């Protein structure tokens, strides 16, 4: 229902915005003369057109429009695919979708093969003339088998009867198929089928095993026929399968043919037996000839007019089923792009673009689901708040050795089994956080973990990189000393360090924060250095003659003067850190948004992959917008000095 409304709204929005835009263009011709700066600020309607179009493409390619407007169509098309598959073998025998009879093309093919072998034998250097004559005789006999099959006078009555039987069955099926209540389902059968349908579930269901936090893959097109029309095709497909099995069991072998081929087989068998080991080549030729003879034996070769009635019956059925399909065909072509259901065969598996592009509704539902802290991903929510006692933080910050260096001993239990606390023991409790104070909310979860890693890596990089960079920009010794160290590690792509750092510092936060610290450090050093060495000499001179000391010049002139470069560096570093973090989380880890995507990749959870991509994009955008705001606030003089 939602999809229908959304699709409808998109169409209205696109058409409305285009009309509005056209109206504006007309007035813009006037503006070109008189100018209207306010109108240049607008253009929201074109943004609406662009995003609506994007959404429409998504809805279309993820089959969501088809699902919204024709929820039964996929299931029905799946049944049509079954009929098509059953009909395919039969149709193949006749010039319905082919150019010629299957019999004709078989005869052509085998004649060609026989001629080829004959040529090869006659030109062969390794066979003597006597054997050439024998082999040529075999080829001639094989060739003579074909007329025995295609002669109408030789066809047996029994075979004729069977062909008539099959034709009759197809005609009956066609007749029944057109009746509205076909396949005459009893009430019991109907109930059983409906039960099976409801058990199988609908199209594109998200199965969630709550508690475990894992989200199973969606089930795609349901196989069991859910509608009367679908059932019709399903039943017809089953009947057609029986009919075509019967037809392909049938062989047009009359007594003369049977005698001939038996004689040929025996002759070749005894001929090959008599050949010595050195006459391997002749034996192989003989083997190839008998292969062709066998192919002729098993091919369904009939006299030219023997199957005419059957051909008509099949065409009639085909027309009847096409008529029953009605608009379904067009839905298949128009609304199931790239992976049309009928073309995918009777298994109705969703192949092609539909697999990697999940439906917006499914993706949205899964996103809502994952956002719930009780579900999350791998038992960890995306972003949630945990109440943590302040004592834990105090215990984390205070080192434990504070208690160790106090005079006295830790308490020992008495013979009554009671432990009496003393001062030293109580201090230990404080420094290890073993007490209760009050609780404060602390965020946690995949998104928070990723954010914290980037933030910490960046902060460490700024704290160390900025002073070092300024120092290097002002002092030649510092530049000469630190430059080689930095230039040694900076050109290496950060991810190349990742395996080393992760294996040394562990897969948890320490390794990743250090990796991001390395990334941000070099950027911060370079930008701070550029800022410091780019300070105009006259400003330093001015500060000097105003009585500022070296330290004051650094603090009050060089640092603020380098701020634009430093802040630009931070912006670059955030982008680099964000990219590196996700890749580092791919490599190893147990939390983080990159970890979520990596796990989702392993289970082909395309919805989750798209959600993580979306979250990453949004977070990256958020970082950049925040920084841009900060930059605008802190250095309004940039470019105006």
């Amino acid at each position, binding site marked *: 229902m939602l999809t229908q409304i959304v699709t409808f709204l998109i169409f209205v929005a696109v058409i409305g915005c285009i009309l509005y835009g056209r109206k504006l263009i007309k007035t813009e011709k006037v503006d070109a003369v008189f100018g209207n700066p306010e109108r240049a600020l607008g253009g929201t309607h074109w943004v609406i057109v662009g995003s609506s179009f994007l959404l429409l493409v998504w809805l279309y390619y993820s089959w969501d429009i088809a699902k919204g407007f024709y929820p039964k169509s996929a299931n029905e098309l799946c049944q049509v695919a079954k009929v098509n598959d059953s009909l395919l073998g039969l149709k193949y025998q006749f010039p319905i979708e082919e150019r010629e009879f299957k019999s004709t093309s078989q005869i052509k093919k085998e004649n060609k093969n026989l001629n080829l072998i004959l040529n090869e034998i006659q030109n062969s250097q390794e066979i003597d003339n006597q054997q050439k004559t024998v082999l040529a005789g075999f080829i001639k006999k094989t060739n003579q088998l074909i007329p025995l099959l295609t002669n109408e006078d030789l066809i047996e009555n029994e075979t004729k009867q069977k062909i008539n039987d099959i034709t009759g069955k197809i005609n009956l099926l066609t007749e029944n198929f057109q009746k509205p209540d076909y396949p005459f389902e009893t009430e019991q059968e109907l109930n059983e089928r409906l039960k099976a349908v409801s058990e199988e579930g609908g199209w594109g269901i998200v199965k969630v095993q709550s508690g475990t936090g894992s989200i199973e893959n969606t089930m795609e097109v349901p196989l069991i026929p859910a509608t009367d029309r679908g059932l019709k095709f399903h039943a017809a497909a089953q009947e057609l399968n029986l009919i075509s099995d019967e037809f392909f069991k049938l062989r047009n072998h009359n007594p003369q043919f049977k005698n001939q081929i038996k004689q040929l087989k025996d002759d070749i068998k005894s001929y090959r037996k008599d050949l010595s080991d050195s006459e391997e080549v002749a034996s192989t030729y003989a083997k190839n000839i008998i292969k062709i003879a066998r192919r002729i034996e098993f091919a369904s070769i009939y006299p030219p007019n023997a199957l005419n009635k059957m051909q008509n019956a099949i065409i009639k059925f085909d027309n009847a089923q096409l008529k029953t399909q009605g608009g379904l065909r067009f839905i298949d072509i128009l609304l199931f792009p790239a992976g049309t259901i009928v073309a995918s065969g009777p298994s109705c598996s969703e192949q092609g673009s539909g697999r990697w592009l999940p439906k917006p509704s499914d993706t949205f539902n899964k996103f809502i689901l994952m956002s719930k802290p009780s579900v999350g991903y791998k038992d960890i929510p995306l972003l949630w708040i945990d109440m943590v006692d302040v004592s834990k933080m105090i215990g984390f910050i205070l080192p434990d050795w504070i208690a160790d260096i106090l005079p006295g001993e830790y308490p020992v239990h008495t013979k009554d089994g009671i432990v009496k606390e003393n001062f030293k023991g109580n201090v230990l409790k404080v420094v290890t956080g073993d007490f209760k104070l009050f609780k404060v909310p602390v965020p946690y979860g995949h998104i928070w973990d990723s954010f914290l890693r980037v933030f910490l890596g960046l902060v460490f990089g700024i704290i160390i990189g900025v002073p070092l960079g300024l120092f290097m920009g002002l002092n030649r010794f510092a530049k000469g000393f630190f430059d080689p160290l930095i230039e040694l590690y900076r050109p290496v792509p950060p991810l190349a360090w990742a395996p080393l750092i992760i294996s040394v510092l562990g897969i948890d936060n320490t390794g990743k924060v250090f990796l991001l610290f390395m990334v941000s450090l070099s950027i911060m050093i370079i930008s701070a250095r550029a800022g410091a060495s780019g300070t105009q000499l006259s*400003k330093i*001179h*001015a500060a000097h003659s*105003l009585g500022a*000391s070296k330290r004051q010049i650094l603090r009050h002139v060089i640092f603020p003067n380098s701020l634009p470069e430093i802040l630009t560096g931070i912006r670059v570093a955030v982008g680099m850190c964000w990219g590196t973090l996700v890749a580092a989380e791919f490599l190893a880890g147990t939390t983080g948004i990159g970890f979520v995507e990596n796990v989702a990749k392993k289970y082909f959870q395309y919805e989750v992959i798209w959600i993580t991509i979306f979250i990453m994009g949004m977070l990256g955008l958020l970082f950049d917008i925040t920084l841009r705001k900060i930059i605008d606030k802190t250095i309004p003089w940039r470019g105006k*000095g």
Partner: protein
Amino acid sequence: MSDLISQNLNMIFKTPKGETVHALKDLNFTLKKGELLTVLGPSGCGKTTLLNITAGFIRPTSGVITLNNKEIDGPGVERGMVFQQGALFEWLTVAENVNFGLRMKKEDPIQTAKKVDEWLEIVGLQGFGNTPTYQLSGGMQQRVALARCLINDPDLILMDEPLGALDALTREKMQSLVLKIWKETGKTIILITHSVEEALLLGERLYVMAPRPGRIHKEYNLPFASMGLKEDLREIKKNKDFSAKREEILEMIWNMEEEIMGKDI
């Protein structure tokens, strides 16, 4: 007593190519307290080098320069400097720029604020204290630079083409301001300029310098600065004496330029 005395001042630079440039050769002069000296000369004659040495940013190759009998061997508060492009700290407001020197000396903030207001009024920027510097026009920025320098109460003010980047109208106003400040404070001022008119108008004394090697070519004692304190500057420019001096100096500088150009070709 508080004179600026230069004795046999020499400055030799080495260019990256290895050539030596004699920027200043045997410079001897004495500047008494309260004098306004303008220095004029073609580009490359060592005007800025002289100023930088006086400010203490660079040390002379040989010779001594003393202020109040103390040898100059580094930048100091007693010598204030005004640069061509203001060299203001654009991340600070006008008031913060002006009180920069006092803040660095950690003087009493209330006193400082009072002084800032006084000086802003003198340079004609009252009420602009909280304006960010980057929002000011070129002339206003130079006023801030003047106030920033003067608030430190230096004995000697060095001005390196302070009005060079201003338009003609603003320039004239600023010239009056410089004269007014000179009169009111009685400071010793060295002003370097490219403009002959400006040098004649402002200079109580005028040095015309010659290049290669940089030296004082001719020295004038001029009455126009004292006149300018009473009269309109434009009236002085119409003075016959003024025009004659201007033509004389222009001719002199043109000859020097021609000499250099001829040499180059």
